[in-house]
């Protein structure tokens, strides 16, 4: 009599634990969908200025898939899907989801692409890219962050991401050229080597600002003839003059 009772108890507990677990998963999944809708709303709101009503659906699908809560500390998981930047330790942050989506959209990735990221951070941006392209190469100059991100990405099964803890100023020549490059590490200027490692028609994206605050995005486009133009993009719909221009 006692044994079955105990068994039943254990089974109930296991079931309860499973439920709690799946409930947490459900909760994160629904928060993630909420985050995706928030990004969509934001994009719609700025469409008057950008002329682009929605971001690439593939990017949005990935934003709805990648488990952002696994890229932040335990204490911040409940805020992982808020549309806000989050600290990840070592004085570094993970960008606001809208900015991540916008930057990824600007990279105009295709499934066969090979991309380079400077500033791995938590690995979240790399994970988003890994779901969109064939190969992701990412470099980090803060050793513990780089190692942690590499482990995390491996654990989560991202086999097409290579993380290297090294100086990114000269890019990653062994794997160059790249279809697109993203520089999330603070830079006083764009390293010329990176532009060289960009394929003709390739795009390089740099968020400019401080921790927690992205002032604007710099987009460098390399034309088919190798010439380069840059664009500065304000990620927000804001016209500096009151009234009409």
């Amino acid at each position: 009599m006692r044994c079955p009772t105990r068994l039943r108890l254990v089974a109930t507990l296991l079931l309860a634990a499973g439920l709690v677990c799946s409930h947490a998963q459900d909760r994160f999944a629904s928060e993630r969908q909420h985050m995706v809708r928030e990004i969509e709303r934001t994009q719609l709101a700025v469409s008057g200025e950008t002329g682009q009503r929605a971001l690439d659906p593939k990017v949005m699908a990935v934003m709805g898939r990648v488990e952002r809560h696994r890229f932040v500390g335990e204490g911040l998981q409940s805020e992982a899907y808020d549309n806000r930047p989050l600290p990840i330790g070592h004085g570094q942050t993970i960008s606001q989801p809208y900015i991540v989506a916008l930057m990824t959209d600007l990279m105009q990735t295709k499934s066969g692409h090979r991309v380079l990221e400077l500033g791995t951070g938590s690995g979240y941006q790399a994970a988003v890219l890994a779901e969109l392209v064939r190969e992701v190469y990412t470099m980090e100059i803060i050793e513990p962050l780089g190692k942690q991100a590499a482990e995390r990405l491996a654990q989560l099964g991202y086999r097409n991401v290579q993380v290297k803890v090294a100086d990114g100023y000269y890019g990653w020549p062994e794997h160059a050229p790249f279809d697109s490059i993203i520089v999330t590490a603070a830079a006083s200027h764009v390293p010329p080597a990176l532009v060289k490692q960009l394929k003709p028609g390739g795009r390089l994206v740099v968020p400019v600002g401080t921790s927690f605050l992205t002032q604007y995005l710099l987009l460098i486009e390399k034309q088919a003839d190798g010439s380069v133009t840059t664009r500065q993009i304000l990620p927000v719909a804001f016209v500096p003059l009151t009234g009409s221009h």
Partner: protein
Amino acid sequence: MSAGERGSTQCSSRNLSYSPLVHCNDEFGSTTCRSPSPLAGEGRGEGPTRAAASKHALPPARLRFALSLVSAAALAYEILLTRLFSIVQWHHFAYMMISVALLGYGAAGAFVTLLQDWLARRFEAAFALCAALFGLSAAGCYLLAQAVPFNALELLWDLKQPLWLLVVYLLLFLPFFFAAICVCLMLTRYADLAGRIYSFDILGAAAGCLLVILGLFALAPLTVLGGVSATALAAGALGCVRRTLRSSMAAAASLVAAGVVLWALHGPFGRPQLSPYKDLSQTLEVMGTRVLAETSSPLGWLTVVESPQVPFRYAPGLSLNAPGEPPEQLALFTDGAGMNAIVRFDGARQPLAYLDYMTSALPYHLVEHPHVLVLGAGSGVDVLQALYAGATAVDAVELNAQVVRLVEERFASFSGRPYKQPGVTLHIGEARGFLAASRQRYDVIQLALLDAFGASSAGLYALSESYLYTVEALESALNRLAPGGYLSVTRWVTLPPRDTLKLFGMAVTALERSGVSDPGRNLVLIRGWKTATLLVKNGALTARDIERVRSFCRERSFDVGWYPGMQVQEAERYNRLDEPYFYDGAVALLGARRAEFIDRYKFYIAPAVDDRPYFFRFFEWRTLPELLRLKERGGLPLLEWGYPLLAVTLVQSLLLGLVLILLPLRMLARRPFQGPVRPMRALVAAYFAAIGVAFMFVEIAFIQKFVLLLHHPLYAVAVALFAFLLSAGLGSRRSQRLSDAAVQRRQAVAAPVVAIIVATLVYAAVLPRLLPLVAALPEAVRIALALALILPLGFAMGMPFPLAVRAVAALERALVPWAWGVNACASVVSAVLATLLAIHIGFTRVLLIAAVLYGLAVWLYPGRGAKTGA
């Protein structure tokens, strides 16, 4: 120390750290005490004071000295905290934290009011205990506060952050609370000798002001904190020296604690713990980085870092077409932020080629073999750029001698001693003063990019006065240009444009004031994606100049924002924006509808002038709701932090101040009245508030005005603050000569107030005209002139407070600590208010308001005669 001193301190501290705020001093009075004092005879009876003092006994010498020590330590602590929090956080937060913490003074007034009878019975023990607690909490609360995980950058995202901020407030509040109790106790007990007591208090503060500034030159900031803490503990020990075993043991314990604090802050706790989001903290996370040198002064805490594994390549806005990369560099941080580079230079020219690929290199393509002036030369990169460009002579002006010593001595073999190169002359001093005194004419004047991008783009300097970025400063620089010479100013590109457009408009105004009828013909604006450079030519640009500008930009993929005759199609060649903001802005600022454009712009881009020297303020209230609505959509980075924080600080201080003033009223109402005439409390409060506000306004405004006289911001603060404290102390002491009957009459305060108003108005009118005449005089003469101007004013300003304290004490003693608290609260609030007002209406009008308040104070004067008209 008095409320006044407190205020002044903040003034100074702000300036010491180049931070936005000012607080200044206001007066204080002393009160004589009728209570028996063991050494009552000491110090009594000097000249005419005898009449008043013979009735009342001064406290014993050791207590007077202890009071001076507490006041010195409290003022030093305020200056020091601003410095320390500018290092570990950012200076606008330092200002906010300290402004709120200073309400510890107001709280002490309330506390002493409520418990005055109880405290009176334990006067010496309470004084000694509070002095010792001040000493312990000065060090302890700072150490705890810097460990609080407050992250200013997350304030609008994270609900925990306001709570952490509150914890910081409470921690910093304690030391000021204890220090203020000491002062308030002493003034209350000896209210009839307010003039004398106040002079011990305020002269102590004057000494503290000088000592802390000297200390910050010689010692690490936390070692100085140890000194401040130990000074207060020594005051505690002095307070307990009596002949009982217990008090001797308490004194000994206090001294031992002082020793321990000194040791701890010089040793194990001697390094400031920076926010992990400061540039220096982030840099030190990079593998292989190492601090090579640290040095500090009131002008900043300097750190030199090397990074062999991930070399520094600081070259803001370097063209994508640059042929080479920057040579080896060391990073130089000021207050843990604002990285600059010390560049390796071995005499070879080629490694410097990258410097020709910055926007700031443009003027060197327009004039050959120029004589160059570099303002804000720092680590010497701009000097190297000028040398690379073939300058025949370079005058380099740098304010901070420690920066130069690092470059020229400590890292001489690395830097190649840029300031010792042939043709280079170094001037240690402030740029504006150099321009005013110089007789030389230059082909190129470079105004270096001194501030950090991050802080600049976030509006953190919004409250910092800058006398380098004003219309008058530009005029002064234009006066020093040779015919055909260029003033070159480089700024960070912010989007939508802010500082570049403001600067452009200021250049237009400066040219107009110099008599140029068509300013657009003298201006060139170019931009990369990170930096923009504005050139102002002494003369109209020629077709040849314009062709050179265009070819310079073409080779570097920079865009032109303006040159005479430019077409809009040229504005967006290489670096495209949603709209040609820079060109459109330049055209609007040169056109007939300039005022309308400035008015309609969502950032504040009206020209900064010497009377409102806030170039870095771009915040507009009417834009705030829109930015907050855009919070989730990436709009927050457009919010300029400095200004709204000042407003928040004002509201917080005002509310808390009111609570601290109103709280003790109930208790006072229940107290049986003892005294000849019951004064109207509202009148007493209004008087003490009015003189508190007026004192601070005058002091803050004149410290700012004297920056232009003394040039060096540090000297200006040190000299002006010291002079105000010293003379107010002497004035207070002099006020004691009035008899107890005389202080009851309104005429007692009328005389000094008339002097204050006359001096204030005359100075306000004369100083702007006087400054250009004396700018070239030797520093010692200018300091003497500043002292000569301040001393009579400060002397008169030292009187209204102690006179009224005595008047109130004679009517209702119990009101004295409350009146003190009102004055303290008003001082703290008005220091914040002065800055806010100066941003909008300028310092001259702040002075006019102060004059009106002083006039009002005569009418509000709380003496018996004033009420009865006798």
